[in-house]
């Protein structure tokens, strides 16, 4: 094998000490290594792609049956303070932040003045005097530069707002149907009242954390923002709480999110895609569409009404896995799109993919083809998610 091309944005670490020294380490680095984590470079951070006890597929399937812990401390956690924090946040993202109920949040997008997606992010409106924002690690430098530039302008125009990177906190994701049962053992608050996209300050085994019911796997789960100096302690408590709790890495994280139909920034969305092409107009709240008061609103609404161009779709591909940049062809063999993410799906046993196709091909059931290296295989456009999601949504 000349080289094994690793398909997610991760590269294997060689054993050279120099490579490891170049990478940023989370609070769990030593813990990962002690547990046999296979460390790779992800967005400049040393993170585990897998652990020796479970294969990629086993770890993936376990997350949908038990509980998996993912180290997501590389992600950017921000607090936005000040009287005008909601107005400021709305000047950056497409969400109806003003309309968020206390201690709830949503997936949103930071957009450019041309409507392109700078990053996807999760925003929460806390009752603790700040908005909580979590952004992708791969976009951290870009997002910070963008937000700080806008902050300067906002302050100059008299807005009372400030932004800080949340100091001294790491982030872990605890995902899977057994999460609530396991976590409840360390928490006095009634977790059955913490619904999907709700957030709360909670003592977890005596450690003061922010617990948010959200995640990137399609399963019920939480993300726990935990003091960095107590992160190992928290993970050890979770692992000790039940045999159902397993560590999981970036490999399973990617196949899980793809089954859930969730975008990976850089693959499925980037600054050349607006929410229209990205099939993410649901993140642009009705009030914001009408007011056209988010960056790039005019262009986004123009494209939304024009119904042209390409759209992000889900595909099932026969025989071979589809991978980023593989051409999508129509039945006449003409190129009509491109794959942006793809993987075998452990749960369905099929090869699933996300990609962009010309708008004429987006109906469910449309027959297409995907070029896999030198061969061409049949594909079908399907609705996402590929595996039903299990979010703990409040029944009203």
């Amino acid at each position, binding site marked *: *094998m000349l*080289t*094994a091309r690793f*398909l997610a944005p991760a590269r294997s670490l060689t054993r050279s000490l120099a490579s490891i020294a170049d990478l940023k380490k989370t609070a769990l680095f030593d813990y990962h290594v002690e547990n046999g984590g296979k460390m790779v470079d992800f967005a400049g951070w040393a993170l585990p792609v897998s652990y020796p006890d479970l294969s*990629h*597929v086993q770890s993936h399937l376990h997350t949908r049956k038990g509980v998996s812990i993912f180290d997501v401390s590389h992600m950017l956690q921000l607090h936005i303070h000040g009287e005008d924090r909601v107005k400021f946040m709305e000047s950056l993202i497409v969400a109806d932040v003003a309309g968020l109920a206390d201690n709830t949040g949503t997936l949103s997008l930071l957009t450019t003045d041309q409507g392109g997606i700078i990053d996807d992010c999760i925003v929460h409106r806390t009752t603790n005097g700040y908005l909580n924002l979590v952004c992708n690690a791969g976009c951290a430098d870009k997002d910070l530069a963008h937000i700080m530039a806008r902050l300067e302008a906002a302050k100059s125009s008299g807005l009372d707002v400030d932004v800080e990177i949340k100091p001294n906190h790491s982030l872990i994701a605890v995902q899977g149907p057994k999460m609530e049962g396991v976590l409840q053992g360390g928490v006095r608050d009634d977790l059955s009242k913490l619904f999907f996209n709700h957030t709360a300050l909670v003592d977890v085994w005596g450690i003061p954390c922010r617990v948010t019911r959200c995640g990137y796997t399609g399963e019920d789960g939480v993300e726990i923002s935990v003091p960095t100096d107590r992160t190992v302690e928290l993970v050890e408590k979770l692992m000790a709480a039940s045999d159902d709790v397993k560590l999981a890495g970036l490999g399973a994280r990617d196949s899980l999110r793809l089954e859930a139909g969730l975008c990976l920034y850089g693959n499925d969305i980037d600054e050349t895609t607006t929410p229209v092409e990205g099939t993410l107009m649901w993140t642009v709240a009705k009030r914001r569409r009408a007011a056209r008061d988010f960056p790039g609103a005019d262009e986004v609404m123009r494209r939304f009404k024009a119904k042209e161009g390409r759209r992000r779709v889900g595909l099932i591909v026969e025989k071979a*896995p589809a*991978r980023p940049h593989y051409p999508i062809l129509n039945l006449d063999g003409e190129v009509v799109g491109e794959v942006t993410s793809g993987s*075998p799906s*452990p749960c369905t046993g099929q090869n699933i993919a996300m990609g962009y196709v010309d708008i004429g091909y987006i109906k469910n059931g449309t027959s297409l083809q995907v070029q896999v290296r030198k061969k061409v295989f049949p594909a079908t456009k399907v609705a996402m998610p590929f595996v039903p999601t299990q979010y703990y949504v409040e029944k009203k």
Partner: protein
Amino acid sequence: MALRLVSRACIRQFNTALSTTRPLSMYYTKSHEWVNVSGGVGRVGITDHAQAALGDIVYVDLPDVDAEFDVGDEVSSVESVKAVGDVALPVSGIVKAVNDTLSDTPNLVNQSAEDGGWICEIELTDTSELDDLMDKAAYDEFLESE
């Protein structure tokens, strides 16, 4: 290291009655392919080390029969959930057979990379190229140094 080699040799000899592989004719490349030569015909596959690095294998690209390749040409690719490994031909040859079982059971490469998980059989066009390859001992030593 010596113990490991001995135990592997024992397992190989046990299997010899059932398979056509003979340990002495196995040659290895630095890019983790093997060719098992008998007469002018060689069976080609990826090593156990390579399958372990790839993880659960889900798809193997098989070459066309009668296709001719030079040494080092990509003759196949082996794909896991997370990675695609290109398989370079250890020696020049013409494809005479492919392991069709891998179409339905690609993870045979995981289970038996250096035996039942063979990828294709070639008719060697230049047997002198075997001199550039490693034997098992040299390959094992190469793995230790990597």
